[in-house]
């Protein structure tokens, strides 16, 4: 049997920024490896390097030193153009503020990565609708972002991130701009993608309740990993409910 490569792997990853005369070390030697089909939460105080790590994993930025592999591909071995192409096909991003184009419909927004990649409009549209189906919004394909609620807009953004069937889905505070009910829905959706599609999702969050829905929790402080916790499989629904000391 062929051993499946990790969804991603980073080794001795460091990133320094120079702001004027000050050198800020955002990440200082982070090494991690992640199985496929997991929801991984990254937590830590602001300035701990969470977003930097996410951007490096996704190839949005290049490390000062260290390695990033996604599946079998070493990002450092790719030139800028090939890295951009790889990113477009294999990494889906979700941001706090959705980043949808206001003048395009939900389906057009979702189809965009495929159109940029040169797919025919008919095929791109067909796949966009399939991706919208995954987030339960196929019936809203014709709507403009302005006609959708915040939670629905984020679900369109998730569809757009999924439309290329990427190896990795990276989410930076995906519910930061949502009320708690829509936030819970988005998290449940991400959880379902992991459980039913075997999608690998890495999510930066400061919300403990959401991080607690992950399979693994990584905590950063001052650019290093201070905690790497695997959360156990959840017991059956009834059992947990029965165990809660509700009263008397």
């Amino acid at each position, binding site marked *: 049997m062929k051993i499946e490569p990790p969804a991603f792997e980073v080794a001795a990853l460091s990133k320094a920024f120079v702001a004027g005369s000050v050198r800020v070390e955002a990440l200082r030697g982070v090494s991690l490896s992640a199985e496929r089909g997991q929801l991984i939460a990254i937590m830590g105080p602001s300035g701990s390097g969470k977003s930097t790590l996410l951007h490096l994993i996704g190839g949005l930025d290049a490390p000062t030193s260290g390695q990033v592999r996604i599946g079998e591909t070493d990002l450092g071995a790719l030139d800028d153009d090939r890295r951009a192409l790889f990113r477009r096909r294999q990494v889906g991003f979700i941001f706090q503020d959705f980043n949808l184009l206001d003048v395009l419909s939900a389906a057009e927004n979702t189809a965009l990565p495929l159109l940029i990649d040169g797919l025919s409009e008919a095929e791109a549209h067909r796949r966009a609708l399939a991706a919208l189906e995954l987030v339960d919004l196929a019936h809203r394909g014709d709507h403009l972002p302005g006609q959708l609620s915040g939670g629905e807009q984020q679900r369109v953004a998730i569809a757009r991130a999924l439309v290329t069937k990427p190896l990795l889905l990276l989410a930076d505070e995906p519910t930061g701009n949502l009320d708690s009910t829509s936030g819970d829905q988005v998290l449940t959706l991400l959880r379902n993608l992991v459980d039913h599609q075997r999608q690998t999702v890495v999510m930066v969050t400061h919300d403990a309740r959401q991080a607690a829905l992950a399979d693994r929790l990584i905590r950063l402080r001052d650019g290093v990993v201070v905690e790497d916790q695997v959360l156990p499989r959840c017991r059956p629904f009834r059992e947990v*409910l029965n165990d*809660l000391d509700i009263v*008397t």
Partner: protein
Amino acid sequence: MSIKHALLGLLANGPLHGYDLKAAYEQELVPESHLNYGQVYTTLERLSRDGLVTHDVVRQSERPDKKVYELTREGRQQLRDWLTTPSRLDLDLRNETYLKLMLARRLKGSDPREVLAIERRGCFERLHEVSQTRARAEKEGAPLHAILLLELAVLQLEAFLKWLERCEEFLNREKSK
């Protein structure tokens, strides 16, 4: 939660006998709970003695007679007062984590921040379980009362995690002095 007021409340819509009260409490009011008959009957006796409920004895041919309980005017008034008075919130500060932290702080060669890290892992495991159960509650068709109580459990665990973070800040400050 007060069984006394729960029973008064369950009687507000009409008379019930002891068995019905127990069933209504366990099924409709507080999910997954178990009241024993002793608790129900001692509470009902106390309520009768205090004039908050009365009972009729219903004769049954094959089985022992049963008592059907009913709210008195005074019982109804007490229920109304209870419902319209803010609850005394139990701030239970007897807490094992606190004890461990304080002891680790006194013990030579022991760092309370290690205790914090262990407690945080434990708390996250519990939160993982409860918040996943909470997230599934709607899909599983859980009744509203179960959802509300799960929500309370999630929020309490979140508050506890925040408290651990504050403890860490204070302990770091103490260490750097």
